[in-house]
């Protein structure tokens, strides 16, 4: 706790992230118009600017923007959790194997990683989505496919360093299996760097996912999604500014919050090697 006090920016980040998470979890309770997350139309109140009744205004079919943003946060966080939950184990495992076993494993895996890293992330995701139907699930697959190589490279570098340490030698001399050395000895030493990176990545996954749905390749209507909302509202700028600005700010809050917490993690855990 004292560490957070000493690091005010981290505290700000924690507050922002907590806000986002709570907003998503408690959307049903907080949202003034919970049913507006679905296919509801209210042509009496469409395109209304922010007011007391509609805090962030309404969209083109009359739905409350604030309520929709709260539900959209669910999608964003779900994306972050699922993508990381799949990409990180794959990336870490490949990095450990490439770093510790060396030889052909290293060569093969790292060249594969290099190929994936050489393709601009968005382009890769777009090409994957180009051959699949644009849905939330496929969006997750696309983003996961471009995310694992970063973890492979991170863990590969740490593993190469740890390989030279005395405790690895001691385990080898004792006759421990290679699996044990990789996953029970070296992996724990990767944790600080991994936690830092995952925290930072949560924000970036949200950003990338929003970019994809901005291009129309994520969730489809009527499911609320921050990127789609920004895209829809873009046509109405600058008159109906709230349609794009509030979802945009919502993305900003989430990404910024995770970034600050991630930086704080780096300071606390020293995970940056």
């Amino acid at each position: 706790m004292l560490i957070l006090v000493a690091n005010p920016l981290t505290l700000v980040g924690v507050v922002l992230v907590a806000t986002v998470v709570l907003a998503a979890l408690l959307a049903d309770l907080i949202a003034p118009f919970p049913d507006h997350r679905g296919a509801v139309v209210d042509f009496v109140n469409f395109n209304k600017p922010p007011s007391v009744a509609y805090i962030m205004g309404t969209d083109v079919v009359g739905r409350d923007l604030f309520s929709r943003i709260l539900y959209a946060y669910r999608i964003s966080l779900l994306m972050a959790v699922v993508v990381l939950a799949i990409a990180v184990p794959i990336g870490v495992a490949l990095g450990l194997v490439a770093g510790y076993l060396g030889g052909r494993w290293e060569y093969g895996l790292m060249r594969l990683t290099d190929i994936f890293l050489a393709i601009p992330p968005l382009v890769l995701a777009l090409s994957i989505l180009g051959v699949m139907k644009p849905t939330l699930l496929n969006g997750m697959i696309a983003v996961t496919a471009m995310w694992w190589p970063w973890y492979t490279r991170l863990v590969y570098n740490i593993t190469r360093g740890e390989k030279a340490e005395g405790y690895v030698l001691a385990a080898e001399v004792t006759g421990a299996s290679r699996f044990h050395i990789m996953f029970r000895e070296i992996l724990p030493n990767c944790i600080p760097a991994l936690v830092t990176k995952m925290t930072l990545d949560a924000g970036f996954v949200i950003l990338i996912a929003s970019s994809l749905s901005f291009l129309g390749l994520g969730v489809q209507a009527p499911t609320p999604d921050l990127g789609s909302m920004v895209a829809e509202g873009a046509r109405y700028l600058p008159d109906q500014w709230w349609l794009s600005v509030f979802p945009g700010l919502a993305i900003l809050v989430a990404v910024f919050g995770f970034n600050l917490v991630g930086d704080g993690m780096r300071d606390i855990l020293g995970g940056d090697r």
Partner: protein
Amino acid sequence: MILQMRDLGKTFETGQLRVTALSGVTLDVAAGECLAVVGESGSGKSTLGNLILGLFAPTTGHIVFDGSPLLATRSLEQRRAIQLVQQNPASALNPRRSVQASVRLPLDVHAIGRASERAAMVRALLADVGLDPALAARAPAALSGGQRQRVAIARALACNPRLIVLDEPTSALDVLVQAQVLRLLDDLRRTRGLTYVFITHDLALVRAVAARVAVFHKGRLVEEGTTDAIFTDPRDTYTRGLIAAVPVITEEEKEMRDRLARGAA
């Protein structure tokens, strides 16, 4: 003889570079003795240790351990019989695992005792090396250098080895701590019938702990014999030079050193 090395040599090749770290080493180690392997950097003493530990295969020659050939790929039993204590206690223990986990590893690998008994075995080992068994739950960062080295020794003893390679085990320790750790090592050797290959650059240490000495220079074994013999009448010029360079603190040592140095080229 528990360990026999015949014409042992090792050359490393990385791309264009060929480095001959060791050549033509023929050396025996008797069971239960402490053989000191002395040399400066580049002498090949660490390479010798690594060959005994099986980290890589020799380029020439062979090793026989307890009557059987000792290769780089070796049986689990052979791995159990030869253990290591390293120079740097900070690096020798996994910073992210408790003392308990580190000392327990050999027990788990070689399935010694029943799994439920191993925690108690670890505590007993810690007591054997003069540590409070309660330290088992701590992380290495909470221990001093001397304590960490004792943990490393406990770990080396865990699977009842026959031979321990000690690679400069006390160079990173303070003088008072070093003295205690050396006494501990000597005690353990006697009570458990262990054999030590004690690698060091410190000749004064050699006199204090080893019965026999092998002096290495630039990858070759230049002199070998009992400690007393080497220090009374060193034959090789390099050995004399090595003795002459040792910083000493008593007049007695100074006289001895000067006497021996006068014989050096």
